């Protein structure tokens, strides 16, 4: 999410300390992992915002994706992309979209859990995932033209 090895190491240490110091504030309303996830996500977003003040966290800020939201985009757009290309595409994704795709497809969190982490409604998360997939598809098309996504 931070795209910087050193920064990620420092963040890990800071997040670990933050979790320890705030253990008393954990109210068991969500699972412990969701709580840690939420701290991590917010901490990383803060770092990104400090680093680049005008950065877009989610692709919803881009007007052209709002129009294409209605169209259902299959998971294969992301999951069957050739790994090296997928790596490039993920590098170019807005950090919020990257995080949400990681939560959904790598950590396999449920929509409900992602909603708890990001403090949004489930329908907003579904919409966000769809927009993230649309963004990935558009980055792929910009970079590799109309070549088929799979191998």
């Amino acid at each position: 999410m931070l795209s910087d090895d050193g920064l990620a190491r420092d963040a890990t240490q800071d997040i670990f300390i933050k979790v320890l110091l705030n253990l008393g504030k954990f109210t068991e309303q969500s699972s412990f992992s969701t709580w840690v996830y939420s701290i991590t996500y917010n901490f990383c977003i803060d770092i990104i915002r400090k680093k680049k003040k005008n950065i877009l966290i989610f692709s919803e800020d881009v007007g052209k994706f709002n129009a294409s939201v209605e169209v259902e985009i299959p998971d294969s757009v992301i999951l069957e992309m050739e790994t090296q290309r997928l790596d490039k595409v993920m590098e170019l994704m807005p950090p919020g979209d990257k995080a949400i795709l990681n939560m959904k497809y790598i950590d396999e969190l449920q929509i409900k859990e992602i909603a708890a982490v990001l403090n949004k409604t489930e329908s907003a998360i579904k919409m966000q995932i769809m927009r993230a997939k649309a963004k990935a598809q558009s980055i792929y098309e910009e970079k590799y033209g109309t070549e088929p996504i799979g191998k």
Partner: protein
Amino acid sequence: MHNNLKKLQEEREAMLPPELEDRVSSHLGTMAYFGNLIELFVPNALQVVVRMVGGEDLPCLRRSKRRETPNIDWRTPPPSEGPIFNPSGA
């Protein structure tokens, strides 16, 4: 369906040095050990210092008051409510 996103993550994890996990867990173990030591000994050491300068017990080390033992006269039997057991039959 393939999950190339997961595959990419696994490839990245495979690039990490294998001893990294051991290093992190050994650091954690050391931290936990020192944490326990501090938790056990620091309040007691502080308590000694506080007592030496004439202070009172630290609230965290103050023992809970024991229940006061009732003043019972063990020589008189308790008032019985049921039948009295009399083995001699007298």
